[in-house]
């Protein structure tokens, strides 16, 4: 099986090279059969990598320790499901997964668009093929998951215990779907520049892919945060860790892109800006993969040891040079068709939004690469901690939230004063009232006040939008529920977007509350002793140990009371994993968590002391659940936005009828 997988990867690499050349040659000489062949090649890449992935999974499940990758990432005691997920536990497997996901996108793009954007598609195919060449090269020649050990060991090193978690099983795949998905709009942008068709076509056909990738990046980030919160046991969910930043940066740039393409679609403006944004977003996605996979951030020295580091840097340099080179070459054709009508318009709100998102991305980028730079230049690593990131990003985020409320309320092109007054009155009053009430109940933190007030403002504007839309429709005689349904289904992009905004508001409220009002205490208790925090009391009832084949576990039991009433037992654990893995982490804390929308009780067993005493860290974390709930709302909104609608079909009908009579009858 392993040989088959190995050869499949190699073939995928060869086919990728062929596809890139065939597509460009076909487009240049107007030979359709070459383009058709390239299209089939794209599908072949998918099948070849599918075979490779399946054969690696086969080896993992059957614990074929003769493969280095299997020996390093599994062990005989590993449950079935984690044998499969160890496909992306290590470097080589992750890169294979990256290539495979790319090939899925590639095949779908070809199947969906090949008969539509004919002038564009060969170059889109060529771009995706070049990306595929790079990644299949890495997997085939540099980080091969099918590398055979000279002697197969009896037992594998096992999967890192912190990776044995349901969230860790899906979070990387989600994030990869986001990272890799960014390749598609990038390929369409490059296709537009290479073919010279710089109209809206590339945006129109890549739009759903952009939203798809953006959604997966968002969900991946939230799942990652949840995983960190549940599994890492330090009480938080976000630490501005380089790997987190790596996913956050393309998200920031991608969010800017998702907004600014709307202006191009509606007004024919910002063509240069959109093109640059998608290049930057793709660069950040590849850079994110690079940071995550090369280990460069932990130390430049690991960079020197890793083979893929320089290759990645070379590829990144190639992408930047080539795409910005094309950009300069086409810059005359990227002129806007229209002009701004007014500073007070949704367009300009979008521009501010874009600048802020990019500013945030740049700040995160600087903070992320600063340690490497300082180590490279001075030999000392200067760490950039959370205070830097928070100081820069919190104000930017607050202004962005403000714009999130402003955008929907002011009109395209031109907003008049009376209308602004009329539309903003209620939401502004609601925002101010929120701040006043919060001050009255004793909240003094300026950032928290600003954040809550702005969230109330945004929530109110979105509510107003829905309310007015429903009112307009129900005046025509629809009952409100039907009016609401039709309002959303007839304007999916608009109202789906608003739902996403509500999700973001919930997330921001959760982040604000849990970071400003967290209470934390470390305490050592003897059996029967209690500790009080806020209106909670915890009584330490005892400690015991149990063993499973995989681990020795120590469990403490605490009874929790709220306002004197018992609310249940909490059992934080500390586990030592048995197998002789030389993993850095073989100890793992299993947090005891009691979660409500009001607050989370988060208990960590730190140490077991003498005479049955134990040391705990107890954290009361308000409204963390709002973040996860916000993530769900965001996902719902994104699905609404992407839900297939009528317009596309009508356009297809039109194009097919008027222009495609002769040509589209040729089907391969």
């Amino acid at each position, binding site marked *: *099986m392993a*040989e*088959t997988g190995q*050869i499949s990867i190699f*073939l995928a690499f060869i*086919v990728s090279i*062929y596809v890139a050349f065939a597509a460009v040659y*076909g487009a240049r000489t*107007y*030979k*359709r*059969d070459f*383009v*058709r*062949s390239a*299209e*089939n090649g794209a599908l*072949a890449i998918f*099948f*070849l990598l599918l*075979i490779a992935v399946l054969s690696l999974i086969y080896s993992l499940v059957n614990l074929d320790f003769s493969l280095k990758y299997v020996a390093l990432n599994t062990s005989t005691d590993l449950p079935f499901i984690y044998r499969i997920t160890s496909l992306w536990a290590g470097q080589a497997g992750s890169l294979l997964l990256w290539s495979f996901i790319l090939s899925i996108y590639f095949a779908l793009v070809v199947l969906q668009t090949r008969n539509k954007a004919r002038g564009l598609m060969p170059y889109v195919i060529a771009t995706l093929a070049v990306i595929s060449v790079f990644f299949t090269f890495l997997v085939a020649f540099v980080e091969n998951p099918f590398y055979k050990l000279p002697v197969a060991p009896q037992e594998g090193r096992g999967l890192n215990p912190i990776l044995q978690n349901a969230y860790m099983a899906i979070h990387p795949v989600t994030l990869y779907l986001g990272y890799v998905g960014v390749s598609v709009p990038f390929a369409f942008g490059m296709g537009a520049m290479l073919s010279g068709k710089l*109209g*809206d*076509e590339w945006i*129109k056909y890549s739009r759903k892919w952009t939203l798809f990738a953006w959604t997966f990046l968002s969900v991946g980030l939230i799942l990652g945060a949840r995983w960190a919160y549940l599994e890492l046991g330090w009480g938080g969910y976000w630490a501005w860790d380089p790997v987190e930043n790596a996913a956050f940066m393309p998200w920031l740039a991608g969010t800017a892109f998702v907004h600014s393409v709307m202006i191009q*679609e*509606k*007004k*024919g403006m910002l063509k240069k800006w959109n093109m640059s944004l998608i290049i930057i977003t793709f660069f950040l996605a590849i850079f994110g993969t690079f940071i995550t996979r090369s280990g460069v951030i932990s130390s430049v020295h690991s960079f020197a040891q890793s083979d893929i580091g320089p290759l990645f840097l070379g590829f990144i340099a190639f992408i930047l040079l080539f795409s910005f080179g094309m950009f300069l070459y086409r810059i005359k054709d990227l002129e806007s068709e229209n002009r701004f009508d007014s500073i007070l318009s949704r367009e300009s709100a979008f521009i501010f939004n874009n600048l802020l998102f990019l500013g945030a991305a740049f700040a995160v980028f600087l903070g992320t690469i600063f340690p490497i730079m300082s180590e490279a230049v001075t030999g000392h690593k200067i760490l950039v901690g959370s205070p830097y990131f928070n100081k820069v990003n919190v104000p930017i985020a607050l202004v962005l939230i403000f714009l999130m409320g402003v955008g929907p309320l*002011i*009109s*395209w092109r*031109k*907003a*008049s004063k*009376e*209308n602004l007054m009329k*539309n903003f009155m209620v939401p502004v009053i609601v925002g101010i009232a929120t701040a006043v009430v919060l001050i009255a109940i004793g909240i003094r933190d300026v950032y928290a006040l600003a954040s809550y007030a702005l969230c109330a403002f945004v929530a109110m504007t979105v509510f107003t939008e829905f309310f*007015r*839309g429903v009112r*307009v429709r129900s005046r025509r005689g629809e009952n409100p529920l039907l009016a609401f349904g039709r309002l959303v289904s*007839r304007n999916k992009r608009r109202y789906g977007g608003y739902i996403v905004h509500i999700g973001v508001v919930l997330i921001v409220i959760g982040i604000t509350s849990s970071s400003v009002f967290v209470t934390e205490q470390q305490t050592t208790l003897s059996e029967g002793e209690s500790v009080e925090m806020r209106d909670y009391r915890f009584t330490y009832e005892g400690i015991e140990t149990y063993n499973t084949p995989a681990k020795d576990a120590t469990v403490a039991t605490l009874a929790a009371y709220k306002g004197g009433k018992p609310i249940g037992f909490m059992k934080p654990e500390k586990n030592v994993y048995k197998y002789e893995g030389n993993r850095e982490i073989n100890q793992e804390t299993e947090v005891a968590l009691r979660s409500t929308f009001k607050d989370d009780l988060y208990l960590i067993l730190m140490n077991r002391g003498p005479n049955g005493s134990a040391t705990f860290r107890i954290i009361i974390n308000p409204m963390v659940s709002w973040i996860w709930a916000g993530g769900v709302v965001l996902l719902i909104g994104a699905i609404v936005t992407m839900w297939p*609608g*009528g*317009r596309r*079909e*009508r*356009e297809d*009908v*039109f*194009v097919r*009828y*008027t*222009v*495609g009579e*002769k*040509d589209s*009858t*040729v089907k*391969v």
Partner: protein
Amino acid sequence: MLDTAITIVIAALAAIFISLPFFRRAGNESAGNPGSSLRPNPRMEQLKELNARKESLLSAIKDIEFDYGLGKLSREDYEDLNSRYKVEAADVLKKMDEIAEGSSEAPVEDELEKEIKEARMRGYSVYEDDEEIEKEILMAREASWARESEERRCPECGSAYDADDLFCSKCGHKLDGDTNKQHAESV
């Protein structure tokens, strides 16, 4: 041994699949299909471009209607933008028709209408609102043609006016100009 065999089969299948289009070509050409060239058809390109332009104008008009309906645009701004976009859309549709007529084919819009109906019968959802706007643009276009042949005159002062004007731009006489007024009421 088995591995080698499987590998050869996989490689062969991939090669056949990828080279398939080259063998298919001969068959298609003999069937009288000239479509194996990718050489751009200028008429097709132009129509595509115009169609894209039309779509973006339609959505802009829809947005304006919406913003006006929700009270985000003042009446003057709404009317100004609305008529500007509609005139532009009418121009685009005219150009599209010219291209279609130039090749002695049925007018684009009639066929489009038919296709939409058929699509609907097949159960595709087509936006009502879009259709409304489309109708209005058609009206605006007819009006612009009418204007070219015999200009509309204000019954009060005799100066020319546009089909979608509500009031005479010269004397301010209320005109029974159709589209805008109707729309303002329906929104």
